[in-house]
């Protein structure tokens, strides 16, 4: 048990250290959170929209791109239908008339092949990727492009939000994504962003000539390309006021499949890019990546310990039940403050929870969102269920990696 205690205390210490580090980072960069919007000299930009069976959302995705506050003569939209079985191609084709949207159809080969298909057909200075179930805010390009004034910046990410959350799982993800907004901005100040999300990331076109095109990358190409950019020491920035709204999985099963795919991708790509764990990669190599993997180890082992404690409690209750049987007259509760747990872990756990809530509210403020009833619902739901859910995703991902199973993006799409 002494080892178990040491493990729990180390995990709590690491969690607390990381949270304080992040809060301090945001605090010291509070005057550099936003950049002035691009007002003139608009460069040419192409946006690639890879899609597979997205007939329900593709029209709205294209409409949001057409509504971008950006000169249309400088904008190209390439919709790549990756062999959809539904009417995605037909729906997208209706937008071709204006000349900005070009729709291509290819045989199904996976998301990365659709992205590469688009990359091979563009000539513009900048290229963006946008998932077909996501909608951009009108000011996105104007807020993202100024970051490219620094020559080493090769990619700029945006602020991801959940599109009109309606179900319990979407409320919960809304909170998670808001925390993600805080996290991504913080990581940008440490040069440590490791994912360039499918829902809107802008790249310099030339970077793909230097580092190569997208790869299958264990079905998480947006993570692999982030790792690859980092391995070349290229800078990835974050425009926190560039808003993108994405349709989130509405129930447990599709959410579970999505997360297992993401996290197994993190494990497998993490292994492929284990060379990033070095001095050369500074904050990323010596802090962010180790904390990510140690955090996973802590999550699994501490959960195991907690589970063991729950099993002991349940077996004690069983022993008690065996010994005395069930007698309703014995069920009387009374509150006595003396028995409140004053353990160090409770104190630190509460403190970490407070810091996390601060980070979530900072994420909300950074992305200039308005506090709503739905948001507070999400906070309560997240406090109650996020832990077990997060654990289930990681358990699923770790099992897949250990059993050498690979997720199927097409099947996942069918579930959604």
């Amino acid at each position, binding site marked *: 048990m002494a080892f178990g205690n040491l493990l729990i205390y180390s995990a709590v*210490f690491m969690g*607390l*250290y990381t949270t*304080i*580090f992040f809060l*301090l980072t945001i605090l010291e960069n509070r005057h550099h959170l936003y950049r002035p919007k691009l007002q003139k000299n608009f460069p040419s930009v192409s946006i690639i929209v890879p899609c597979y069976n997205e007939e329900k959302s593709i029209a709205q995705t294209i409409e949001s791109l057409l509504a971008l506050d950006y000169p249309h003569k400088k904008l190209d939209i390439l919709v790549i239908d990756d062999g959809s079985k539904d009417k995605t191609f037909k729906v997208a084709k209706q937008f071709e008339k204006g000349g900005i949207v070009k729709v291509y159809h290819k045989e199904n080969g996976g998301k990365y092949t659709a992205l590469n298909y688009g990359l091979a057909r563009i000539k513009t200075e900048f290229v963006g990727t946008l998932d077909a179930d996501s909608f951009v805010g009108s000011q996105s390009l104007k807020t993202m492009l100024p970051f490219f004034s620094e020559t*080493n910046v090769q990619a700029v990410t945006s602020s991801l939000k959940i599109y009109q959350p309606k179900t319990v799982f979407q409320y919960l993800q809304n909170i998670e994504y808001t925390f993600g907004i805080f996290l991504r901005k913080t990581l*940008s*100040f*440490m*040069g*440590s962003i490791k994912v360039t999300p499918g829902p809107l990331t802008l790249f310099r076109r030339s970077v793909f000539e230097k580092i190569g095109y997208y790869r299958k990358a264990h079905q998480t190409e947006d993570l692999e390309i982030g790792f690859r950019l980092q*391995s*070349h*020491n*290229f*800078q990835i920035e974050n425009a926190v006021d560039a808003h993108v709204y994405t349709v989130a999985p509405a129930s447990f099963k599709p959410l579970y499949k999505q997360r297992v795919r993401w996290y197994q991708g993190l494990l497998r790509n993490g292994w492929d890019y284990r060379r990033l764990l070095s001095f*050369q*990669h*500074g*904050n*990323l190599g*010596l*802090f962010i990546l180790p904390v990510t993997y140690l955090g996973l180890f802590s999550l699994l082992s501490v959960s195991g310990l907690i589970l063991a404690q729950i099993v002991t409690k349940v077996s*004690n209750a069983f*022993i*008690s039940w*065996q*010994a*005395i*049987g069930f*007698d309703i*007259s*014995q069920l009387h509760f009374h509150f006595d403050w*003396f*028995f409140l*747990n*004053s*353990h*160090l872990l*409770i*104190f*630190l756990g509460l*403190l970490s929870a407070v810091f996390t809530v601060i980070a979530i509210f900072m994420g909300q403020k950074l992305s200039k969102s308005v506090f709503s009833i739905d948001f507070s619902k999400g906070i309560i739901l997240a406090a109650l269920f996020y832990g077990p859910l997060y654990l289930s995703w990681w358990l699923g991902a770790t099992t897949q990696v250990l059993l050498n199973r690979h997720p199927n993006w097409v099947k996942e799409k069918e579930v959604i």
Partner: protein
Amino acid sequence: MTNENPKKKIRVGKYLLVLLLTGFIFSLGFWLSHDIDRFKLSQVNNLRQDLQLDVLSAEVQFSLLSANVCEHIDDSSLTSELYAIGQRLGYMEGALGRNDPEVIRLKKQYSLLEIKQWQLTKKAQEQCQAQLIPILYFYANQEDCPSCDQQGYVLTYLRSKYPFLRVYSFDATLEISALQTLKSLYSLKQAPPIIIVGDQPYYGFRDREEIESILPEVFDTLKQNQTQEKSKEVSPES
């Protein structure tokens, strides 16, 4: 790799500052929880002192042996005080560990008070015809006595079901001479769990039904003894 990413650069000073801050918060938390635990222990100690006074007062009442002493002797408040201390001590044992010197010291004092109260109960039985059954229970920790937890549940249950039961629990491993004397009174040799009901020791785990089946027998013996005592008191006058 010729590119430069200045933002990746490690600033040792910042890492150290955060380490210092985290260390400070950690120590603060440690100090705070330690302080609260000590405060709780001092509360247990206060309760123990109150009980000590009450027990002493009851003893003095007995020793004065005034005519209506039995009317004034009420052990229910003493019992509930004793149980409250027992519960709190058990909790503190879990929080601070069974080897904490302060916990051990309080446990020893608690055991002595239990013995004293057990004597009072016996006196109340003999002199005041009190319909009470004391149970002495000797336990040990989980490793040495796997069934002690279960025995504890049974006794707690019976105690709350039958208000006439008085359960006095002793950690058999406590090094305290009064406890050893008590054990030797009943010539206890085997390992816990041991319960003594009506001066009869029972070794090993005893379930609810078993103990419940012993109780009427103990009551009968108690009544017989009390009748004999009474007749002894009455006979000289007649």
